């Protein structure tokens, strides 16, 4: 059965528009259509100038994060039927500059992601082997955090990032923890300075909404807050044994 729903999209072209505005479209939809498909319908049939990012349309690529009626969600796994007969308001993710319409500028996050060295800083494999073996329980220590694919919904959910854009933020700190918690990694000493600074884990007040909106159940709030404990231990260790070499 085809019904019609009203989708309001935030439109903004920073080079020519004085300020963002909402534009409404009447979109025919079926029960199996997502918000992303609604946007694609608009672009194909109603207004080719509407700009938004998407790729996989199955909740694994991390492109189509948007504010849907004020909540950070993935356009591809949010269904239009949920909102009918009401209106759907689609806006770009909170706290990020707008490139155009629904597409945000992620540069700030990408710089932060780079700063946490989100890769294995390898230590030499054990003598006589050319791989680092890992037991299942060692994998469990980081597996959950490795599922983060940078949707940035957590940043849009984080008022502390909104209040202080210098805050390293949930996803970058979570990926930092993901590598620190990996038995094959030797980069902890290089990453702890990011954790320990005022804008590292200490920028977090455990609002916890980041973990609520995470579509992959990564629980960034948990990763960040465990590192408050780690940072505190690191602080007192540094205070008591200032000359001790940082253990990797």
């Amino acid at each position, binding site marked *: 059965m085809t019904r019609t729903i009203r989708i309001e999209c935030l439109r903004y072209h920073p080079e020519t528009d004085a300020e963002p505005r909402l534009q409404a479209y009447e979109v025919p939809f079926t029960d199996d259509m997502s918000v992303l498909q609604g946007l694609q319908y608009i672009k194909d049939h109603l207004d080719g100038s509407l700009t938004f990012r998407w790729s996989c349309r199955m909740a694994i690529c991390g492109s189509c994060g948007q504010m849907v009626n004020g909540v950070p969600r993935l356009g591809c796994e949010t269904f239009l039927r949920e909102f009918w007969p009401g209106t759907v308001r689609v806006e770009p993710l909170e706290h990020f500059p707008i490139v155009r319409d629904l597409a945000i500028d992620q540069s700030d996050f990408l710089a932060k992601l780079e700063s946490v060295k989100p890769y294995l800083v390898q230590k030499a494999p054990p003598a006589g082997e050319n791989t680092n073996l890992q037991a299942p329980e060692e994998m469990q220590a980081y597996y959950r955090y490795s599922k983060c694919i940078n949707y940035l919904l957590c940043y849009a959910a984080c008022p502390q990032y909104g209040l202080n854009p210098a805050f390293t933020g949930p996803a970058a700190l979570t990926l930092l923890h993901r590598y620190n*918690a990996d038995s094959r990694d030797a980069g902890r000493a290089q990453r702890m300075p990011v954790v320990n600074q005022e804008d590292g884990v200490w920028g977090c007040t*455990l609002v916890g909404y980041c*973990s609520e909106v995470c579509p992959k159940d990564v629980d960034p709030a948990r990763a960040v807050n465990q590192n408050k404990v780690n940072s505190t231990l690191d602080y007192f260790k540094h205070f008591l044994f200032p000359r001790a070499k940082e253990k990797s």
Partner: protein
Amino acid sequence: MAGWWKRHPYYLWYMLREASCVFITAYALILLWGLRRLAQGEGPFEDWLESLGTPGSLAFHALALPVVLYHAWTWFKVMPKTLPDTRLPAAAIVAGGVAASAACSAALLVAVWWFGLWSVP
């Protein structure tokens, strides 16, 4: 970001949790004041006890109680995130915290009650 806490009920609950700090601080100051009155002698201490019974004080404590209870609940609710990684399920950690709080509260009440009923000055 002005008024951001009004954007979602989740943020309002967070702000209520944070607001509990006002009551906890004020309560600590009331106790500190009582300690000062205790150090000054029986008369001043009785005055302080008397002041706890005024409508203003009763209203403050009646409001502080549910807010601090809410603080306690949120404190245990986030414990699975603040404790170092364990194998315990999150629900068990929360339940453990709540049970510990209930046990401490019961012990405190019983101690005070017992103390109040049988202790000889």
